[in-house]
């Protein structure tokens, strides 16, 4: 002790000594002693004693205030700091004094008083960031959110991005949220996302992210992008726990390092306090999150829901799948199932959608969300052309949830689905069921009219007229009145009541304006009526008038074809050709322009103007020849090839000039199709080669044809080929064993042109490739897709045969048998497919075994080599199997005769089955006496 109070006298210890002792006490971490000594100094100075030279009062006051702060004597620290600031208002000491004063006030809960102190401290370049941070804290505590927000905004704009910065950003977001300023809160979060590694309080960030996401999602209008950003900032529980533990360790280490410093400043002391408080808060938040078993399920649902709302159906599906897998009993599961169905519907993945729907119905069969999900699924199935699935969903929905609100919607959709699937009887029944159940329903008018239309299409014209008239009576102002009146005329025409139809159409045409959308159709039907009456000129007049009205492409094609037909019947080829020429000129971008070129060529050729026809076809073909999407170009080129393949007519001298060589034809094609601009374009090159190949084909030069088509496959990448060429070239490449190149063509065809009329080439080709590779499951899918998805316009036989042989390879004998029988009994398919089917039916029987089946199998094999000799691959297989069946039946002489008969057919010698037959002959000849074979029958005999 340096100051001793005696009884009689007081010894004054010099101030420098007291200051020295205070310094020693600080170094020895005896802050309380130092504080008392410094107070003593200040007291004596206040009484007039002078400080030693070089020591300013401000510095001593500052040290005293700081030391009192260290020992948590905040009132005294406040008092000393205030004294200091009375005389020292600028400079370093003033800044430090304000820091001590502000913190001391704050720690005594005098937040409102602290706010202006920190505001003044902002002028200090040293303490500016801390001042902003503390001001925001004090303002927040004293219920001055606007002040706090202002301070935080300024702090975040300039402070270095560290843990304090991140903490301030979190506080700002929270304040903005409380103030309802969602855009600002969102901006704050986006700012923070750029520096997430600085965030110590991840648990707090998670809570804020969820709160902000919910607020943005529920705002009006919802801010989906913002909500998604907020939810995507939230970590799943396992990640949060792992990362938060790392951050807590980091914070604790930091606090320990602060504490280890020998001399800590006011702000460092406060930093320790803040870090420790942050650790405690974080641990508590973590504990809370740890208790919530449904934490991730809640987060995943929000994420999935927001993705789905925002058009991210793929992401939503991924998230809902995970939610349902990991939390099958979560509260959100019903909603998740319903939205998973919608997500798959939105992405067009109907098979996955079906699986999700099945799971949904199994997991929560009584869910009120199921009817809606079934309706969504039915709509999606329709959109993807899966009418079978659509009807299945609707049937389930209508039968299982008859009282649901959505049932009314589903019943109408069912009627429409049947109608658009040409199941008119079922459409009629569904519409009738709707009208019965909901006579005044919101779609009653639609159902009423649909029923009449189904009746009409079913060919019951008289009943249809009656039902349409009933509709007209019930809904005189209805939406379908004009159509109904027109349909009555159409029905009358169908009944060949031409006079009534004529009257009905006259009435219709006079009642509805010249720009009515059905006028063209009505005039077209009027043309039909006149044609039915044999009034060809009137019919032509009506059809031509119809061309001036609005017509769908189908109707337009019909009218043009009818006009062409009538002009041809009058042998007026020129008028028909001129009509098509006008059409091509007036509507140069219409898809029918290529049809026009086709007809112009054909009609001009009928007039004997072959050269002119070729020229006009070439002129139109050049317009579209570079575009692989225009697959009608191939049709036109085929027609052009047919003209080019013709032998020249005899000259005036009666001598027929020699036919042009392939080189001359190639030069001509090049001249017609290639222009300066397009000559390097790969699609043009492909189409030129295709036209040459077509000419070669028509001239029976199959080698040249295959060579030319082969060049397309070898020289031109699939992306430059039209759908028709992709199919043709793919098939040729497959025949040539170039399987990878063939696959590239097929892949491109089904992926790029799934709705092309040639898509079945792609599916069948891929099916054959999968079959060759032994991947029968995939092969079956491809063959089925060729029929179900692509409609199998060209490849129905190949697709059906593919399904059958794949089922056989997979030992699904009953299903295979049905299909082979279907093929064998189809007269239109008679040929090699029949031979293969009969042979395969024999194979099925052979696989089943048993003497009766073997005998029947034998009959099938014999039928092949007796009735279908032309198809040598199957004849060879049939002979061998026939011989082997005889052997299995123990009829070796018959077997021997069959093998010998096979060998007599020289056409079969190249086949491997013949070599096998020779081996069996050698074996059997050792066993069977010669006399036995002479007596037995076998083979064709």
């Amino acid at each position, binding site marked *: 002790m340096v100051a001793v109070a005696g009884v009689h006298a007081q010894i004054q210890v010099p101030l420098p000594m007291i200051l020295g002792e205070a310094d020693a006490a600080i170094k020895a971490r005896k802050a309380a002693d130092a504080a008392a000594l410094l107070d003593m100094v200040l007291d004596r100075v206040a009484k007039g004693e002078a400080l030693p030279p070089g020591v300013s009062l401000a510095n001593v006051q500052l040290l005293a205030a700081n030391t009192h702060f260290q020992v948590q004597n905040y009132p005294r620290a406040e008092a000393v700091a205030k004294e200091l600031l009375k005389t020292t208002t600028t400079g370093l000491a003033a800044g*430090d004094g304000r820091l001590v004063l502000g913190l001391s006030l704050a720690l005594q809960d005098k937040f409102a008083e602290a706010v202006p102190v920190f505001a003044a401290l902002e002028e200090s370049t040293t303490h500016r960031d801390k001042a902003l941070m503390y001001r925001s804290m004090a303002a927040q505590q004293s219920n001055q959110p606007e002040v706090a927000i202002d301070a935080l905004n300024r702090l975040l704009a300039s402070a270095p991005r560290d843990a304090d910065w991140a903490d301030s950003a979190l506080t700002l977001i929270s304040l903005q949220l409380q103030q309802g300023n969602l855009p600002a809160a969102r901006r704050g979060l986006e700012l923070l996302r750029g520096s997430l590694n600085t965030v110590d309080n991840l648990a707090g960030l998670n809570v804020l992210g969820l709160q902000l996401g919910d607020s943005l999602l529920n705002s009006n209008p919802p801010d989906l992008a913002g909500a998604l950003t907020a939810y995507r900032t939230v970590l799943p529980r396992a990640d949060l726990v792992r990362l938060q533990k790392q951050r807590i360790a980091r914070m604790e280490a930091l606090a320990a390092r602060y504490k280890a*410093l020998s001399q800590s400043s006011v702000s460092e002391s406060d930093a320790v306090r803040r870090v420790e408080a942050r650790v405690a808060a974080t641990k508590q938040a973590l504990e809370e999150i740890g208790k919530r078993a449904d934490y991730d399920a809640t987060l995943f649902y929000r994420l999935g829901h927001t993705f789905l709302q925002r058009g991210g159906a793929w992401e939503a599906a991924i*998230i809902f799948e995970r939610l349902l897998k990991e939390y099958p009993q979560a509260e959100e599961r019903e909603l998740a199932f319903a939205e998973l169905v919608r997500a798959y519907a939105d992405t067009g993945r109907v098979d996955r959608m079906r699986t999700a729907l099945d799971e949904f119905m199994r997991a929560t069969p009584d869910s009120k969300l199921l009817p809606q999900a079934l309706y969504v699924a039915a709509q999606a199935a329709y959109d993807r052309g899966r009418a079978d699935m659509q009807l299945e969903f609707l049937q389930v929905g209508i039968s299982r949830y008859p009282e649901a609100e959505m049932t009314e919607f589903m019943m109408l959709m069912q009627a429409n689905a049947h109608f658009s699937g040409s199941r008119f009887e079922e459409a009629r029944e569904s519409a009738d069921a709707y009208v019965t159940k909901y006579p005044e329903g919101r779609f009653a008018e639609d159902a009423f009219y649909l029923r009449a239309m189904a009746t009409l299409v079913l060919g019951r014209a008289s009943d249809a007229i009656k039902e349409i008239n009933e509709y007209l009576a019930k809904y005189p102002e209805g939406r379908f009145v004009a159509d109904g009146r027109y349909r009555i005329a159409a029905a009358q025409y169908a009944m060949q009541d031409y006079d009534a139809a004529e009257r009905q159409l006259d009435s219709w045409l006079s009642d509805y304006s010249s720009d009515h959308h059905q006028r063209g159709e009505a005039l077209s039907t009027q043309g039909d009526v006149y044609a039915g009456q044999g009034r060809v000129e009137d019919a032509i007049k009506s059809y031509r008038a119809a061309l001036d009205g609005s017509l769908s492409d189908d109707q337009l094609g019909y009218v043009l074809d009818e006009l062409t037909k009538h002009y041809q019947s009058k042998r007026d080829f020129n008028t028909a050709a001129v009509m098509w020429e006008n059409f091509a000129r007036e509507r140069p971008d219409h898809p029918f322009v290529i049809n026009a070129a086709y007809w112009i060529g054909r009609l001009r050729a009928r007039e004997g103007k072959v050269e002119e026809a070729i020229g006009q076809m070439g002129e139109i073909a050049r317009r579209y020849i570079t575009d692989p999407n225009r697959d009608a170009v191939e049709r036109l080129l085929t027609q052009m090839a047919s003209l080019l393949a013709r032998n020249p007519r005899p000259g005036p001298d009666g001598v027929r000039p020699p036919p042009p060589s392939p080189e001359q034809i190639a030069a001509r094609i090049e001249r017609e199709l290639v222009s300066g601009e397009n000559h390097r374009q790969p699609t043009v090159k492909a189409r030129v080669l295709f036209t040459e190949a077509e000419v070669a084909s028509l001239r029976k030069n199959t080698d040249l044809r295959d060579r030319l088509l082969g060049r397309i496959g070898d020289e031109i990448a699939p992306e430059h080929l039209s759908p028709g060429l992709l199919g043709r070239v793919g098939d040729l490449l497959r025949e040539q064993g170039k399987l990878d190149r063939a696959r590239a063509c097929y892949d491109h065809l089904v992926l790029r042109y799934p709705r092309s009329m040639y898509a079945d080439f792609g599916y069948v080709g891929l099916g054959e490739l999968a079959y060759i590779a032994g991947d029968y499951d995939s092969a079956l899918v491809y063959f089925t897709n060729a029929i179900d998805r692509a409609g199998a316009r060209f490849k129905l036989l190949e697709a059906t045969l593919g399904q059958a042989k794949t089922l056989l390879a997979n030992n699904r004998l009953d299903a295979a048998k049905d299909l082979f029988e279907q093929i064998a009994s189809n007269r239109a398919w008679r040929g090699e497919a029949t031979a293969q089917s009969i042979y395969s039916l024999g194979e099925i029987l052979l696989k089943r075994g048993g003497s009766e089946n073997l005998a029947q199998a034998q009959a099938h094999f014999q039928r092949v080599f007796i009735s279908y000799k032309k198809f040598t691959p199957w004849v060879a297989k049939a002979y061998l199997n026939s011989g082997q069946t005889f052997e299995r039946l123990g009829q070796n002489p018959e077997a021997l005769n069959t093998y010998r008969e096979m060998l007599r057919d020289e056409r079969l010698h190249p086949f491997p089955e013949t070599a096998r037959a020779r081996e069996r002959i050698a074996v059997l000849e050792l066993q069977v006496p010669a006399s036995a074979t002479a007596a037995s029958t076998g083979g064709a005999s």
Partner: protein
Amino acid sequence: MKSLFCALAALVAVSPLCAQRYILRDNRVLNHADVTLKGANLVRVIGDGAEISYPISQVARLDWPEPEDIEQARQLFAAGKATEAEEKITPIYRQFAPFSKLPGSWWSDAALIRARALLAQEKREEAERAARELMSTSADPDTVVAAQLIMARVQMLLDKPDIADAMLDEIMRKDASSEIEARAAILRGDIAFARKEFEKAIEFYLQVPAFYGTEEAVMPLALLGSARSYRGYGDTARAERAYLDIMVTYPDSPEAAIAKTESATL
């Protein structure tokens, strides 16, 4: 009086929290500025040319803030400047190499950035060596897994997606950070894409935006993969949207330039 001023100065002094220090096993502390590395020793000059040597083996841990070059190299790499990133990080990688296994060392971070930069430049053999070194040296489990992922990626460079896939199966059996999981999802997407399994590829790539929404460093890569896969799947509308998302949200990423080029051909 000098000491009094020191006490006053301490009030405003910047705290030594950013010191670069070696902590020895006996808790003695060596400031980096006071020593130089000579062979296997840290050497301190104590005046008159006398030296005290401290064997590196006696260093227990490093107390070292993250070198600025690491963040700069990370940013260069993220901007698609792999060559520059490699140049920037290699001195740090070498500086910390003697302390590669010690707590507080920045070697693992530097070595990982370097390995990724080598991979991005398709320096296959060097990347493979760098990954092997990390796997055998790094004490950080996440870094080891990241190195294993690089090894799997090398298989993709060798056009061996099946091997990469098998390696991924093995790697992902262990617990991994969300960054590693995101990178693994992208690699799985790449494998599916190489096999033309576009639907599967989309589902892998979209794991990243769906579940790893804070992994901004790999987000453009995942979105680019998804855009390409949508395209392969035949969904050009979604492909276009994904390309646009990259260009708008990550305009400075190398993937944004690729997205611009590829979307023009849609």
